[in-house]
């Protein structure tokens, strides 16, 4: 096949792909089906609805949720102090919540309590607790925070972990994996359409 012939064949091939793409775009409902009919006006009521990538089960959890946030800068060398904020939230009002910080070796408390209790928490109104710490080594430390409560015969709690030096990297890694999961999901979904 001459170079000219190859060029013509290549052009036709590209043209075919292009046309197919435009056609597919025109039929994009087959990729993303929209409701048969939409009337607007109350669409705000759809908010707060989760729309997970993959339908999957989730394990039983109580209404409590805890988080750790670093306030200020990371402790990068021995002797650096840093402040962690533990947040306790609940989707319902609860009484008698106890909490505890788990500190590894190489970290000591400068200010704040490593455990305590709250008389109550109001649903939707998080409680924030601060703990000032000092690193003795400058290494990455895993700090833990847990909060729990008992109602009648049921105990429930939530726990979280914070890495003093590498938390940002870990969070970025999770974002990358989420992106990867999304890409893989989209490719599989698209694959299904052509079958």
């Amino acid at each position, binding site marked *: 096949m001459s170079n000219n012939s190859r060029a013509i064949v290549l052009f036709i091939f590209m043209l075919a792909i292009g046309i197919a793409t435009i056609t597919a775009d025109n039929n994009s409902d087959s990729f993303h089906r929209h409701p*048969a009919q939409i009337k607007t006006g109350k669409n705000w009521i759809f908010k707060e609805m989760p729309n997970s990538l993959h339908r999957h089960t989730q394990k039983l959890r109580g209404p409590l949720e805890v988080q750790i946030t670093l306030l200020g800068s990371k402790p990068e060398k021995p002797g650096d102090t840093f402040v962690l904020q533990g947040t306790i939230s609940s989707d319902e009002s609860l009484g008698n919540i106890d909490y505890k910080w788990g500190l590894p070796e190489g970290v000591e408390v400068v200010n704040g309590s490593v455990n305590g209790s709250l008389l109550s928490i109001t649903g939707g109104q998080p409680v924030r607790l601060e703990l000032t710490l000092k690193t003795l080594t400058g290494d990455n430390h895993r700090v833990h925070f847990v909060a729990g409560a008992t109602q009648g015969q049921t105990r429930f709690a939530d726990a979280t972990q914070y890495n003093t030096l590498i938390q940002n990297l870990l969070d970025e890694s999770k974002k990358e994996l989420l992106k990867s999961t999304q890409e893989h999901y989209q490719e599989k979904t698209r694959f299904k359409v052509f079958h």
Partner: protein
Amino acid sequence: MTRLLALIIFLFPLVGCKIKDSVATSPDGRISPTFQGPSELSYCSQVTSYSNAITVTGLAYFIRRNPWGDSVTGGLGSASTSGTHPATAHPIRRAEIRVTNSSGQVVQCGETGANGEINLSLPRGNVSYVISVNSRSNNSSYLRASVLNMPERNQVYSLQATVSASASIDIGTITASADGSVLGGAFNILDQFFEANSYLRSQVANFTSAPKVVAYWEPGYNPNAYFGGSSGLSFYLPGYSRLFILGGQDGDLNNSDTDHFDNSVVLHEYGHFLEDALFASDSPGGSHNGNRIIDPRLAWSEGWGNFFQAAVLYGANSTPYYIDTIGNDDGSLTEQIFHTNLETPPMSGGDCYPTSQNSINGDCPRVLGEGNFREFSVTRMLWDMIDSVNDSRFSSSENLDGKFNELWGTLVNTSNGFKDSKFAFRSVGHFHLAHAFNYSSTDMTGVRGVERHRGNTTDYAEYVTATDSCSDFSMTPAGSSDGVVGDTGTLATSDLLRNNDFYHFVSTGSGTITLEYEDANSSGTIADLDLYIYNESARLGVVSDMRGYSQDEPGANPSQTNVETVTSVPAGKHLINVNVYTGGSLGGTANYRLKFNGVKLCPTTLVQ
């Protein structure tokens, strides 16, 4: 012209472009929970005979950390088999054995015995062999399951010993520990699957083993990372026969939430696998706290999972619990994510009595039908079918002991059973309906009564057909004074029992679904009813799962008929949701009817 321009724009960058040949990967090589990685190493099952052989005997065990405590304090115990909260040693049962020579070639295959026995015949010689007991089993009489590290690698965990083949030898007990590499975690997960299959064999005639399942688990890894999350998560992926078990958090096992020794969680997730593989699940998935009215499909599925773990772990004469722990005694903290009694809810006046409507304490239903929407209520009902202890809510005997065979028979039955293809949007109402049809001599009235279960699908996914021969339906909006809690006007917070009606409708062709409604008492304060038509996934409030919806507001004239219309509804199974809009004033009772292409939809018998 626009299309030509689009074509040119499309073609131009193709010159010299490289087609993407791989998907993105995270730094640790993970891609997606559904990723099809390399094939699992072929199962070692071919036993070879040697004329000049030695015999290797021994035992394979694993160490399990144990939960301790009660509803006030507790956690997960030590990795040591002595001390305050000691670990325990257990045989590795029916697991693959693979023996390799120094070149990695397989010289023998086998399987551990019922008590973890190793008994192998190897060619005699002045050489060494590596005996690997692997975290998988492929014995159709006992168990078909693999515990692997991740879908992207599909590698098995191995407990290994090296032997010299110069003479027969007893290698004693080789043990997978509960600390260090935590190999015991992998074998504990496998052993829980073994227990589940043993339980089913003991209860169900002709049951041998469930189909193969794969559990993905890695020490220190939280599978929630696949979804960008950081809270500890174990989950089952429907349609893939894959469980993901929580191994820790960012490399930590001793102070974080882990599930490899939380047998309640492992068996609960295996229960989800069973419903997916052997009967049916229509659960939309999602979070659940055990403290509120939830989608009844989710309540059924989670209630089943809670029940199944209890059935396997606790005897019919025992009090069943669900226990999930954080950290362990070897770390700086340990706690309980969840610890609850599954048999007896908090009581007052002989009734399940919550401290508040959404109390986690018992997940108590207050009105008839509400139990169908609460997962622990579903759990207690199922437990009452099999236990031999009458809880204090029953003034007389439950008359329901040891009915697991009926329960299972109801679930796997494809003809008027839970698995019947006529069924859709399955919840406990479907279970009651199918059980009553297939086991009519068993009286479930008492058990349903204490849990306020509706014994049919009246409150959720009632089957309707276009017969034009029924009275109108009625909807009376409910607010906080009627026991509704947490309703902010969104679909996510709408009371699914009181302010919603759901119907299961199958259309053989496309058409229009109409909701017509009138003020029932001409008060001029009619409820604002909206119409949502969902597909079979029917994640409530998720627009992409809707075939269409209509949200017009009712007119001011009390005598007028208000109409909501969704056109171009395709053929298929639909979940029709009539929802009270609670973002404004509630209004009064409305009488309504649903029509498909002008013909009224009426309740029809699903089992017959």
